[in-house]
């Protein structure tokens, strides 16, 4: 029975399944603990909270697949939210599409700087983006003079965006911001599965040297991955502005580790070469559920939230590695046995003809 399954499904595909089961288990558990857990209001709050980390995570997956990492994302989100927010308070002429475009372009430019340093400057991504994480934040602090963007100064249309709803079923809303985030996941997954660029990211992350020998444009693709991660962080910056309205110079600080944690929990290999957008989506969902539910769970002190979250990240990563390791062994065993059987069969046929 299990052999038949193993012949059909690759171990990596179990990964998403495991995450779905764990997430459902958590939801069921918290539903028994927190009254009104599935109320439309709390569900809406949960889904809206997903939007920002999700968009950033999509970009992070592109980068991590190539065996790199982008730690500067939170500074990009903060900078874009602040700069675009400031521009919107100063000029009435800036329309909605233009503001979104500007956010994405500004983010892409900052991401391109990362890409240049990593891909063409040959600086390890951890060093480069650790540096720009500090640098972008400082540029923001210096040029803003530590002033704050406030909701009251922002145009009215912007303040209406968070409650804009695409679809509503019995009080459960699919908000516009969540729709945008899901769209980036779908587009990202399509790019990874079906576009040559996406396939090349896997090849580069699996073995950069081999990818280069095979003639893949490694530098260009890594650069593009960083630029896209920046662009998506820019979009997330706009969503941040929309959601919070009041933007200080410390906006989005710490988001980078939440996103990296989500991507790792979602089964994207930190050494590159394997992972999917669906996994990242599940990772973001899992961490967001934990964060929001632990806050509301009366059974536990609010101060325990981070302690439990740390433990769960460790458990998720361990379970993933151990279970996946076992599955992969079993998968290889079944394959090998099938191969041997096939060989034995052909050898048997060959022997018979020889004998005749």
């Amino acid at each position: 029975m299990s052999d038949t399954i193993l012949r059909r499904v690759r171990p990596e595909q179990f990964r998403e399944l495991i995450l779905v089961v764990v997430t459902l288990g958590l939801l069921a558990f918290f539903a028994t603990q927190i009254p009104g857990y599935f109320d439309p209001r709390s569900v809406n709050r949960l889904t809206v909270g997903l939007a920002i980390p999700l968009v950033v995570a999509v970009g992070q997956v592109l980068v991590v697949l190539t065996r790199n990492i982008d730690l500067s994302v939170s500074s990009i989100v903060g900078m874009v939210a602040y700069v675009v927010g400031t521009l919107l308070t100063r000029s009435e002429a800036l329309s909605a599409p233009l503001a979104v475009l500007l956010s994405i372009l500004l983010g892409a430019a900052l991401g391109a700087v990362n890409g240049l340093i990593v891909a063409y400057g040959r600086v390890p991504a951890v060093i480069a983006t650790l540096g720009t994480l500090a640098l972008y934040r400082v540029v923001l602090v210096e040029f803003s003079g530590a002033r704050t963007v406030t909701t009251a100064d922002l145009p009215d249309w912007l303040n209406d965006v968070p409650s804009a709803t695409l679809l509503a079923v019995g009080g459960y809303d699919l908000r516009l911001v969540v729709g945008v985030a899901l769209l980036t996941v779908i587009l990202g997954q399509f790019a990874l599965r079906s576009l040559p660029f996406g396939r090349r990211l896997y090849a580069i992350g699996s073995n950069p040297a081999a990818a280069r020998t095979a003639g893949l444009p490694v530098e260009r693709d890594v650069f593009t991955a960083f630029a896209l991660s920046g662009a998506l962080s820019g979009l997330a910056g706009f969503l941040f502005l929309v959601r919070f309205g009041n933007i200080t110079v410390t906006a989005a600080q710490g988001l980078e580790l939440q996103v990296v944690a989500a991507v790792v929990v979602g089964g994207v290999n930190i050494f590159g070469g394997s992972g999917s957008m669906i996994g990242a989506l599940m990772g973001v969902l899992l961490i967001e559920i934990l964060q929001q539910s632990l806050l509301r769970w009366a059974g536990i002190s609010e101060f325990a939230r981070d302690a439990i979250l740390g433990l769960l990240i460790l458990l998720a990563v361990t379970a993933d590695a151990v279970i996946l390791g076992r599955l992969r062994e079993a998968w290889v065993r079944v394959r090998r046995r099938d191969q041997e059987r096939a060989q034995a069969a052909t050898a048997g046929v060959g022997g018979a003809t020889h004998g005749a």
Partner: protein
Amino acid sequence: MGRELWRRLRSWEGLLAILLLVVLAFNVTRVPNFLTVTNQINLFQLGIEKAIVVLVMAFVIISGEIDLSVASMMGLSAAVVAALFELGVPVPLAILVALGVGAGFGLINGFFVARVGLSSLAVTLAGYVGFRGLARLLVQDRSVGGFPAWFTDLGQRGLIGPVTLSILLFAILAVVAAVALHASGFGRLAYEVGNSAPAARFSGVPVARVKIAIFTLSGLVSALAGVLMAARLGAVRASTAEGFELDIITVVLLGGVSIFGGVGTMLGVLLSTYLVLNLRNGLVIAGVTGNTQTGIIGLLLILSVLAPNLWERGRAGLRRRRPEPSLRAPPVAPAGSMPSRAATE
């Protein structure tokens, strides 16, 4: 002699020494009495806990791993001391418990990295979140102070003349770390593991044990730094030492330790520690705020790797544009170019 000096200066440590001299020169000209003992002690005191953790982080990174949980561990150990003190436990015992907690969690980090085979980035990310969470659970949103006078004196006053306990410990640990890294079997094992864990395993190196030992030490030393910080500040919050991991890792990488493991020297790490201390001091003198200092150090971090890479590239590009040297007379170093390593050895 002259060539030998050139070669030395071209090394990473040489570059750091030159940078250090420039920063020192700036500080000395701008501040009277900069090089007095008192002022140097003050300079070290301000970042002494980070400097102590830097020593052990060098081992972690040379062995090819990373420990993001050090700053959270510093906070946790300070919180353990504070919470036990509040319960009436004698401070020396509380310190011992805190050190035990540090070593224990370091061991757990090492176990998950070396035995379970998870990436240290993921494991210590969990520690980064989790240890800070435990600290928050222990001291919540309070600020715990009122420690006995001997404890805070130990953190703030000179032990031998003006030299504080923290600085003394740093000096001892720096010597121990240098000897352990460069003149002991353990140091060789750390380099081998960092260069190539599979190759080390095939040559009979107990890779897992080396890594577990290094992570345990990392936890223990971070806990020690946390206790020292509690003594120096005289008050403990859940956010004690928050964000220190970036500074600590930056100093190690700036010291010439490769993020991919297997490369780096204690001399470079110590030079970079002193350089960053002086740089921050110089920036304060120049009226630059703390946040901007971090940004400048971030820029320095990028440039420290980018500049040599671009330099090499530029040279390679020039070489490519010239006719193939092998087709002509034997290669002669162009006038003014620096001798290669092979030429001087």
